[in-house]
C-alpha cells in the first residue's frame, strides 16, 4: 500500500454517528453508507423486515441532514427552490417536496415541516452537503439556514409503533399540544420525554404507520435503549429499510431519482402543489408544467417478476426485442414472496398489466407492470 493509498483511507474513513457503539453492542453489521458507518442488519434482513410489518422497528437515520430555515420570507424563499405550496403549509404540518435544479431535474427529495414559522427540513444523507450549499447559495440573505448536526434522527415504524411511543409517556411541549398518539400522518409537534426535548412527526419510509423522532445526539442512546426495552420494538438495519420502502413504492434518491429525472416522469406530480402549477416560479417550471400537460417519454413504474431471481438496478427492460427501459431498484419482496422492481419505461409500455421482460445475466425474466405501492400503505390518517 502506498502512502497516497493510506491517506485515501484516512480521508474516506466512514464517520461515526452517536449510536455507533449502541449498534455494535446489538450485533449490527456495520457498513459505510453516505459517508457514515451504518447498521445494515442485526439478526437478518427478512426477519427485521417482517418484524417491522408486524410490530415496531427502530431505525437510526441520523445520517440524514436535519436543517432549519428561518427568517422573514422563509416560505417564499423555499418556494423559489421547491415546487410545494410552502406558504399554505400550516404549523405542525409536514409535506414531501423536491429540491429542483434549474432544468427541473431532481437534486433531492425531502420532508419539510412548519415548526411555527421555522421550516424544519430532512434531506438525504448522501446529498446533504450539496443541499446545504445549494440552499445557502440560493436563499435570500435575510433567511437563516441552520444545520442541526448535533441532532440524531430515529424512525419508529410499524403497526405497534404508536402503542410503543405512548408507553414512553411523552408530554406535549406546547400548551395547546396533543398526546403523541393523536398526531395524524404528516403531522408534527414537539414533546418532552422527561427533561429531553423531542421533535416528533408521524411519518416514515416503510409504508407503515410510524414516527420520526429528532433528538439531541447526547440523548439518543437513552431514547434508543428505552424504546428497545419494549417488547414490541427491535432495532432494524438499512437492509430492511430498503426492502420495506421498495414494497411501499417509495423512490430512493440516487437510484430511482437523480438530477436526470424530472418529477413528472418520476410519478411525483403530487408534490407540485395546485397553486404552484398555476403560478409557476419554481426551478424548471416551464419544463415541468409542459410535462404535466403533455406527458413524458418515460415513466417510473412498478414491476412484479415471476420466479425468484431478482432484477437489479441497471438491468434492461424489454418489450419483445425492443429495449424500453431500465430498472432503478429491485429486490426480493419478503411480504409478497417474489421479486419486485421499479423501472423507468417508455410511457407507451407503462400501462398496468403490460407484459415486459427484464434481462438479468442473459436471462429474460418475465415481468408485469403493476400499481405501486406493491404492499398497501397503512398510514394513520
Amino acid at each position, binding site marked *: 500500500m502506498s502512502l497516497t493509498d493510506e491517506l485515501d483511507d484516512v480521508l474516506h474513513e466512514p464517520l461515526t454517528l452517536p449510536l455507533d457503539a449502541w449498534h455494535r453492542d446489538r450485533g449490527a453489521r456495520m457498513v459505510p453508507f453516505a459517508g457514515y458507518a451504518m447498521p*445494515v*442488519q442485526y439478526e*437478518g*434482513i*427478512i*426477519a427485521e*423486515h417482517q418484524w417491522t410489518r408486524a410490530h415496531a422497528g427502530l431505525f437510526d437515520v441520523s445520517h440524514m441532514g436535519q436543517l432549519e430555515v428561518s427568517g422573514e420570507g422563509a416560505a417564499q424563499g423555499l418556494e423559489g427552490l421547491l415546487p410545494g405550496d410552502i406558504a399554505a403549509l400550516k404549523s405542525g404540518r409536514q409535506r414531501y417536496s423536491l429540491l429542483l435544479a434549474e432544468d427541473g431535474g431532481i437534486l433531492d427529495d425531502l420532508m419539510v415541516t412548519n415548526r411555527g414559522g421555522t421550516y424544519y427540513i430532512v434531506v438525504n444523507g448522501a446529498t446533504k452537503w450539496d443541499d446545504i450549499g445549494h440552499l445557502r447559495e440560493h436563499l435570500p440573505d435575510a433567511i437563516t439556514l441552520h444545520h442541526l448536526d448535533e441532532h440524531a434522527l430515529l424512525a419508529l415504524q410499524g403497526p405497534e409503533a404508536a402503542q410503543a411511543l405512548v408507553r414512553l409517556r411523552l408530554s406535549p411541549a406546547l400548551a395547546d399540544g396533543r398526546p403523541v398518539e393523536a398526531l395524524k400522518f404528516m403531522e408534527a409537534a414537539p414533546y418532552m420525554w422527561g427533561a429531553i426535548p423531542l421533535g416528533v412527526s408521524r411519518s416514515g419510509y416503510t409504508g407503515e404507520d410510524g414516527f420520526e423522532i429528532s433528538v439531541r445526539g447526547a440523548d439518543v442512546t437513552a431514547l434508543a435503549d428505552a424504546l428497545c426495552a419494549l417488547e414490541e420494538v427491535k432495532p432494524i438495519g438499512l*437492509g430492511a429499510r*430498503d*426492502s420495506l420502502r421498495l414494497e411501499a413504492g417509495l423512490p430512493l434518491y440516487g437510484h430511482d431519482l437523480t438530477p436526470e429525472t424530472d418529477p413528472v416522469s418520476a410519478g411525483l406530480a403530487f408534490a407540485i402543489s395546485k397553486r404552484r402549477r398555476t403560478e409557476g416560479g419554481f426551478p424548471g417550471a416551464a419544463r415541468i408544467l409542459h410535462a404535466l400537460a403533455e406527458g413524458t417519454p418515460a415513466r417510473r413504474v412498478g414491476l412484479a417478476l415471476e*420466479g*425468484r*431471481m*431478482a432484477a*437489479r438496478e441497471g438491468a434492461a427492460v424489454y418489450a419483445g426485442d425492443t429495449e424500453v427501459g431500465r430498472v432503478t431498484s429491485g*429486490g*426480493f419482496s*419478503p411480504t409478497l414472496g417474489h*421479486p419486485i422492481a421499479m423501472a423507468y419505461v417508455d410511457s407507451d409500455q407503462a400501462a398496468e398489466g403490460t407484459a415486459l421482460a427484464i434481462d438479468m*445475466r442473459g436471462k429474460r425474466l418475465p415481468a408485469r407492470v403493476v400499481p405501486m405501492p406493491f404492499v398497501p400503505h397503512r398510514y394513520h390518517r
Partner: protein
Amino acid sequence: MPRYFTEEHEWIDVDGGVGIVGITDYAQGQLGDITYVELPGVGDSVTKGESCAVVDSVKAASDIYSPVSGRVTETNAALEDQPELVNSEPDTGGWLYRVELSDAGELDSLMHKGAYDKFVAGL
C-alpha cells in the same frame, strides 16, 4: 472424505474423483438471507476460479467461483423451492452441485479446515 476450502469461501468434499460443492457458514452469514440460487446446468463444464453459480440475497447477487475444474453431474434440486437451505444448512443440505473433477491436482492449492478457519479469523 476430505473437505477443501477456497479463499472465496466455497467448500468441496471429494470422494474418488467426484466433488460436492457448497459455500461456507461464514459466506452465508456475510450474504444474509438467500432468496434464489442460480445453479449451473447438469453437463456444464466449470473452471477452477471462474463464476459458475449466483446466490441472490435480499440485498445483492453474489458470484460463486468453482473450487475445481470439471463437469457438473448433479445440482441440488431442493434449492429451487428452499434457497434458504444455504443459510440454515450451509455445510450439508445447502450444497450447490456435484462435479466430476478433471484435474485432482487442483486440490493442492485449496485449504484444509484448519487453514481456512485461520484465514477467516484473520478477516
